[in-house]
């Protein structure tokens, strides 16, 4: 190999503390170095031309530039080398500016260090292989996971830009939690009134393929080239035949066996049901668990009343494969459960508030349903136990949030606002009622938010008490709420008719499962992680996967919608070009050496390692070895370090290259 060395003075930047002439001279004595020069500005045109000329004249096949950080000009020099006909990956950069001249004062010492760094680079380049960047095409279709307000917004934005969208929702209808809300803060406009037109727009959009009652089963591939398998769960209703007349649900004899998910278990629903009247699509599903037909085959009332023969008891789950370029994850949140057994095992739950055993101690979404005109009480405030109008309601904030003992230490962000709204809605309907809010801090940062909370206090007379409640117990039909006003320093005891717990927004129970399916990171709480909290807030660190809404952290409607539009914009940026370029730094397997322990597979964060069977000429499997899917491999090299026999190595950072650098220390 013939290596050329080029030392840049960077004006005075390197030259001031590094004796560039001495460095160049020292390098000329390194084995294989046939050319070693220094120049004022290597990155300038004349500088680059020096490199090109030397390559041509001396038939160099390796170049080391001693200059600024490779993060600055590696691309520049690699291009110059490439222009001169040498593979760009046979060019290495030694960082003589950021790592030497700018951080040391003593010229002697700095020059010595510069020579060392040059030696590392020369030793490494000797072992570099000529590589090719990988070019991959982009499929310009987007998968949106989750049909709440964030998913709806993202789907519409992408579709309106002219690209196809597949919107997957696991429930029978899109709409998400927003469809359950009564009114929205701080404007108190009716949630369904602003949401349903959007839901219909999604349904009718020619570019959106809506798949409700469906879940993402498998995600293979990589940015621009995902292959996604979607499980379309059996509805037992043929959606091409159903006209949405609703007769089946009306006639279904199962009336009091199943609690309505939409009404947060405050009302019953039939076995065949549409979750709520405005559901999109307006096609029912059959709940197998309670349906008499599935239990003993004795009922088929829905079949009888369906004029279009749409009921299909023998329907099976379907698996649909889609080619996708970008994924927008908008899977939202769930509410902290106040029952004794919240799903996460480390969560203890609130025994002191009764673990959900008191009927009139409800959570935030239950109260939304009670307050909602479309809810089980048609918007009349009635308490669940006996239907009486509560005259005294206590609201307790921060249940499950800001509580590392029983829930999560984060602030759930929206509860201050929704509690103020709840108290306000109640006071508007029950004029002689008393509303008390136990809070720790009021966090009302948002447009017109603080004003909203103040209105609840000043105009509607909601009493705010600063303190956490210690205990609730039932006595003679009242709920004794024991608290302390920490501002006055006095104990407070309220005999309430009803208690509303402002339960926290928490990650979906299956959030980690989806993250593992897609191969993207999530935090300790189960929320999906963004690459950078400030500058790249809607991108997951997995290429081509973007985040929208509360799946990333607790978020209210305006924030979720803004984030959804941002995620849509990121997908559209990706669709701006037809091809993607990727670094060729990926792992490869020496199949002869691979013993098939698959530690590489265990540590790979990208599912890039596959199992390959080696067969003899008769087709018998001799052994199983690891195989790298070059489309998925991101080049971290964790597999390389983990492999005990080094049967898998990372191109560009092979053991041999690194060994050479270490050896160059002497």
């Amino acid at each position: 190999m013939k290596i050329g060395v080029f030392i840049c003075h960077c004006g005075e930047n390197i030259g001031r503390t590094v004796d560039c002439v001495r460095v160049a001279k020292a390098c000329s004595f390194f084995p294989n170095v046939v050319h070693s020069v220094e120049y004022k500005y290597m990155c300038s045109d004349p500088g680059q031309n020096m490199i090109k000329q030397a390559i041509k004249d001396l038939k160099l096949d390796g170049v080391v530039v001693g200059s600024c950080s490779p993060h600055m000009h590696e691309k520049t020099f690699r291009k110059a080398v490439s222009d001169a006909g040498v593979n760009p990956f046979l060019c290495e950069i030694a960082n003589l500016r950021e790592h030497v001249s700018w951080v040391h004062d003593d010229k002697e010492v700095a020059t010595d260090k510069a020579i060392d760094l040059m030696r590392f680079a020369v030793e490494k380049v000797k072992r570099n292989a000529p590589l090719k960047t990988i070019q991959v095409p982009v499929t310009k279709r987007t998968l949106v996971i989750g049909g709440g307000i964030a998913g709806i917004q993202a789907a519409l934005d992408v579709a309106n830009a002219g690209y196809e969208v597949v919107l997957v929702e696991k429930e029978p209808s899109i709409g998400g939690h927003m469809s359950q809300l009564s009114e929205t803060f701080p404007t108190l406009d009716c949630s369904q009134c602003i949401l349903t037109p959007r839901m219909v727009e999604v349904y009718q959009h020619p570019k959106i393929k809506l798949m409700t009652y469906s879940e993402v089963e498998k995600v293979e591939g990589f940015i621009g080239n995902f292959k996604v398998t979607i499980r379309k769960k059996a509805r037992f209703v043929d959606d091409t035949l159903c006209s949405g007349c609703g007769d089946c649900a009306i006639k279904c004899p199962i009336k009091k066996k199943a609690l309505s998910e939409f009404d947060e278990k405050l009302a019953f629903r039939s076995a065949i049901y549409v979750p709520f009247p405005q559901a999109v699509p307006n096609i029912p599903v059959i709940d197998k668990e309670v349906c008499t037909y599935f239990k003993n085959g004795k009922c088929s009332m829905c079949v009888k009343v369906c004029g279009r023969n749409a009921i299909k008891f023998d329907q099976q789950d379907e698996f649909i494969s889609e080619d996708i370029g970008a994924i927008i994850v908008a899977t939202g949140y769930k509410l902290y459960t106040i029952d004794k057994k919240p799903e996460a095992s480390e969560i203890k739950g609130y025994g002191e508030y009764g673990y959900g055993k008191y009927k009139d101690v409800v959570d935030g979404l239950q109260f939304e349903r009670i307050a909602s005109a479309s809810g089980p009480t048609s918007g009349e405030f009635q308490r669940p136990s006996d239907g009486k109008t509560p005259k005294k309601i206590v609201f307790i904030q921060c249940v499950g949030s800001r509580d590392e003992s029983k829930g999560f230490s984060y602030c759930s962000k929206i509860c201050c606002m929704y509690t103020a709204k709840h108290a306000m809605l109640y006071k508007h309907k029950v004029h002689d009622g008393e509303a008390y809010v136990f809070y720790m801090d009021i966090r009302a940062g948002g447009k017109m938010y603080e004003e909203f909370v103040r209105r609840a206090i000043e105009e509607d007379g909601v009493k705010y008490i600063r303190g956490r409640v210690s205990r609730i117990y039932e006595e003679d039909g009242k709920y004794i709420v024991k608290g302390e006003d920490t501002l006055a320093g006095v104990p407070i005891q309220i005999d309430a008719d009803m208690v509303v717990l402002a339960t926290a927004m928490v990650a979906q129970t299956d959030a980690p499962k989806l993250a593992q399916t897609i191969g993207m990171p999530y935090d300790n709480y189960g929320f999906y992680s963004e690459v950078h909290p400030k500058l790249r807030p809607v991108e997951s660190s997995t290429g081509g996967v973007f985040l929208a809404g509360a799946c990333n952290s607790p978020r209210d409607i305006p924030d979720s919608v803004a984030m959804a539009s941002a995620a849509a914009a990121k997908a559209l940026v990706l669709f701006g070009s037809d091809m993607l370029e990727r670094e060729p730094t990926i792992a490869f397997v020496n199949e002869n050496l691979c013993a098939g322990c698959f530690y590489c597979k265990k540590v790979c964060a990208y599912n890039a390692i596959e199992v390959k069977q080696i067969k003899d000429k008769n087709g018998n499997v001799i052994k199983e070895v690891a195989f790298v899917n070059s489309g998925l491999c991101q080049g971290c090299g964790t597999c390389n370090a983990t492999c005990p026999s080094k049967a898998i190595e990372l191109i560009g950072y092979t053991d041999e290259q690194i060994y050479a650098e270490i050896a160059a220390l002497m």
Partner: protein
Amino acid sequence: MDDIKKIARELFTSGKVNAVLGYVSINGQRTKPFLATKPEETDNFIINKYILNNLTVYLTKKEILKYGKIGIFAKGCDVKAIVALLQESQIKREEVYIVGINCNGVCADFDMEFSGETIALKCLNCEVRTPKLYDELIGTTEEMPKADDGKLKMIRKIEALSSAEKWDIFEEQFDKCIKCYACRQACPLCYCERCISDKSVPRWIESSASKRGNFSWNIIRAFHLAGRCIGCNECERACPMEIPLSLLNRKMAMVAQEEFKYVSGLDPNTPTLIGSYDLKDDEDFIE
């Protein structure tokens, strides 16, 4: 003890296996491993206090693999190796028929009377006297002699020493190494196609029996077994230079337990120690 010959024969006659790995007696106080490929070859099979070998080492050998389904007589400690091999995809569960042995301890070496003094060190705190995984189980567990855990004491003693003192101990021990690789040969979990010590480009580990090569080899050997070693101690028994290899292996197992509550070879379905991680792994030593 159950009639093991009958059991072994039945494995053949019932068509469960094509070959059986077991022990045969050499004289009263010695055994050797034996691969029976026909029912009648099992007639000399024996189980006694001298079934020291961990037969699982053969399970990954090509010569044995060619027989297809193999039966194996395995003590609880040996089964731990089977579990580890399953975790590491080296064998398939359905290809191995495990005759688990309820074990009451074995001798530290051949040619000695079994007693509290001669019991093998690995037996002292054995928690798998009944194997964790088996297709059939033979024998019963009985009272086992108690003895002093000298190795543990030694580890604790070393831990309390200064770095320089520790270094001197191991320099001396590793210096004895002649790079015969008997340790590697005896280890059921050293199944690499090519050991890193044989990798020549680059040569991470000096191949000659030099001090620094020995040092690297012994450390990397221990590290490659960290979180995997199941403590059968065959390496130490095999070492002709009597290097106390189990000190390192055991120390690593102790770290695995202290840091990650991980004990190797108990459950084929648990993720391996290296190869998995926990967000809450210890951080204190990192600035």
